[in-house]
């Protein structure tokens, strides 16, 4: 393994030394058999509490408690959801469920017989994504560095990449072969976006245009979308459940300081979102807002994030707070909106209305309100909640020592991962923005990161030519994936399977599997 873990800190050393020097109480470990029980009450993320129940300490492993909670909620055995727990102590602090509960009680001077413990339950994905471990395919084809990549929401066997050779390509991930080459742009392809139903693919380019393709045939859909006066940097599709009478809308962000909402069918600009004073670097289309009609979020080099009403094209909020460029923004509902009505169960509703209903249900399950986190060059991130808190930031996330380049919400919306120029990745609590841990290992700036669909794993791409897979909960390096010959610019984890695609300066697409 290329990454050597850092040497133990002074504190760790002191603790191990103390362990060797003091005589251990050999009975402590076995005491749990007759240690009695404790009272616990469960709280879910919405704040709903259950009545206090008594749990024998001997059986209080996290898995057992999870089963207990499921039965308390009155679920059938087939509907059981795995849970992980946090203990909320008297001061309101939250700690992870310890592996040895008795030891935890002893250490914190809690006598479990006297108080009721509050356990905060966090539902986990019912499926498990395994860490990618090997290079399955190295697919040459692009003539220039690969700048962007994205998996199709529909199937994990298709993904698209955009490159500096002015083409985008669609690949077959199962066989590791090229499927279509999308030629036509006159500039680098900076972004590729699959529509949430997987029927269309949008490409943004330096040549100031946006093109929409049919990924089934690899052909251009009627015309290119012209109108921007400078390079188009990013695009975002309208959430599936907000589509009205078959219109498909997309918003694009450009360096000419505007964002435009396009109607893909007619090729016309619906709205021009102008107001930013500098290059608009990132755009997201969320489904929040009043009556859930949709909001567009744009981050710009003019240090502000703007929130627009998607249907009217009017400004709702201007979120000022950063002191330098906004590099990237992420929504808590990103994953749900990206994948629309596709989920791990593979049952796709047949009718249009059902599809919309399912997409809407998935969006609503992703959290009560849509939250936004913006990463900036001023070394901080800000967590916003435009629906509830308006222009007021929920929390400012301090910690990075250099500019923050990329930020992502986990699919279940509980944690935020941020990567920056200071070579490390940081994990934050998405609820209150508190810092959880730092993932050390890369030796060069980390460009991008992507969560696995079950939120348990995170893959990061760095300038140091490696990908690294991290265990989000433990903060351990799960896999180190060397193999690229040069900087890795982009990485994406398939929303439904164990596939990771990456691309970078060495011009070959790489596909990683378990």
């Amino acid at each position: 393994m290329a990454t050597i873990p850092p040497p133990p800190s002074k504190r760790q050393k002191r603790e191990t030394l103390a362990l060797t020097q003091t005589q251990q109480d050999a009975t402590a470990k076995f005491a749990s058999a007759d240690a009695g029980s404790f009272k616990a009450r469960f709280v879910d993320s919405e704040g709903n509490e259950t009545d206090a129940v008594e749990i024998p300490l001997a059986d209080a492993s996290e898995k057992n408690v999870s089963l207990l909670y499921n039965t308390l909620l009155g679920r059938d055995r087939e509907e059981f959801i795995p849970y992980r727990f946090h203990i909320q102590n008297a001061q309101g602090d939250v700690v992870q469920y310890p592996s040895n509960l008795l030891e935890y009680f002893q250490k914190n001077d809690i006598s479990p017989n006297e108080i009721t413990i509050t356990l905060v339950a966090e539902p986990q994905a019912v499926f498990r994504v395994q860490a990618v471990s090997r290079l399955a395919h190295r697919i040459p084809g692009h003539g220039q560095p690969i700048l962007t990549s994205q998996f199709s929401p529909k199937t994990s066997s298709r993904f698209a990449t955009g490159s500096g050779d002015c083409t985008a390509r669609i690949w077959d991930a199962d066989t590791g072969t090229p499927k279509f080459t999308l030629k036509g742009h006159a500039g680098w392809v900076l972004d590729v976006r699959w529509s949430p139903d997987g029927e269309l693919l949008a490409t943004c380019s330096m040549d100031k245009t946006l093109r929409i393709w049919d990924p089934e045939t690899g052909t251009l859909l009627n015309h290119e979308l012209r109108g921007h006066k400078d390079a188009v940097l990013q695009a975002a599709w309208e959430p599936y459940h907000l589509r009205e009478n078959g219109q498909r809308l997309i918003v694009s962000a450009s360096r000419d300081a505007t964002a435009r909402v396009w109607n893909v069918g007619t090729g016309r600009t619906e709205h021009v979102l102008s107001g930013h004073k500098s290059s608009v670097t990132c755009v997201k289309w969320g489904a929040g807002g009043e009556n859930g009609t949709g909001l567009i979020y744009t981050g710009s080099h003019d240090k502000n994030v703007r929130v627009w009403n998607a249907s009217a094209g009017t400004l709702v909020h201007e979120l000022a707070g950063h002191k330098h460029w906004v590099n990237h923004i992420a929504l808590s509902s990103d994953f749900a909106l990206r994948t629309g009505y596709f989920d791990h169960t593979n049952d796709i509703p047949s009718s249009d209305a059902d599809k919309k209903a399912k997409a809407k249900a998935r969006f609503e399950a992703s959290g009560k309100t849509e939250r936004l986190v913006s990463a900036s060059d001023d070394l901080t991130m800000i967590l916003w909640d435009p629906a509830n808190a308006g222009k007021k930031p929920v929390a400012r996330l301090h910690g990075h020592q250099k500019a923050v380049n990329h930020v992502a919400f986990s699919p279940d919306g509980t944690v935020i991962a941020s990567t920056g120029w200071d070579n490390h990745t940081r994990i934050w609590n998405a609820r209150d923005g508190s810092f959880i841990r730092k993932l050390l290992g890369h030796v060069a700036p980390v460009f991008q990161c992507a969560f696995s669909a079950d939120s348990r794993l995170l893959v990061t791409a760095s300038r140091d030519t490696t990908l690294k897979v991290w265990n989000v909960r433990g903060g351990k390096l799960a896999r180190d994936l060397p193999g690229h010959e040069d900087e890795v610019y982009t990485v994406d984890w398939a929303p439904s399977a164990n596939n990771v695609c990456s691309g970078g300066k060495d011009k070959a697409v790489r596909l990683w599997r378990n």
Partner: protein
Amino acid sequence: MPQNEYMERWRKLHGRRLDHEEKTRKKAAREGHKQSYEAQNLRGLRAKLRAQERRKEKIQMRKQIKAHEERDVKTANQNDPSEPMPAYLLDRSNPSTAKAISSQIKNKRAEKAARFSVPLPKVRGLAEEEVFSVVHTGKKTHKKSWKRMITKPTFVGPNFTRRDPKHERFIRPMGLRYKKAHVTHKELGVTVNLPILSVKKNPSSPLYTNLGVLTRGTIIEVDVSDLGLTSASGKVVWGRYAQVTNNPENDGCLNAVLLT
């Protein structure tokens, strides 16, 4: 006020001559004539010195002209870098992409022929008489003449201390020791002042290698950790070989190129 600044003092007391501006203007106006006269009439050493001076001036002029031209040209995509990069790297002043080159270098070195090629394959050999001078201090030393002083620049390690005079056969003078070299990365087109780690090979003699003699063609190991090169497995490259390209004993500085 310092003693020797009598001209400044006089000026403060009495001001300039009344015709001072006129005189300086005229002098400047005749500058071209003077240059021309000198160019045509100076001979010998003075001509050489003047040519040398003039050459430096011309270099500066050309640089300045080029800078002005670059400033004046306005292109549509002035800021766009020549090689493709993702949207999040645009508009940033990217540090020179040292990494790209290192992989090219690796590919090249994999070819067998290139493995042992160096920029300066042949250099003039150095005889011991040229490198060492005999030290004649003291009666015994004089009689046996066993002590040598190295007349070329050398590199000694960071924690080097001299041996006692009785056992010190080779003296490496303090004034000729070097710790850093100006190392050029050819592909990146940058020159960085890097600390020397060791002398790997002096082509003239293994003895010179041991003594750390720095002459033209010597292979040295330099600390490139500042350049931020990484290996394929994502570790920072630390030491890298470089070859000395100038005659440090003549120039008073040490220039080298990184080996590819």
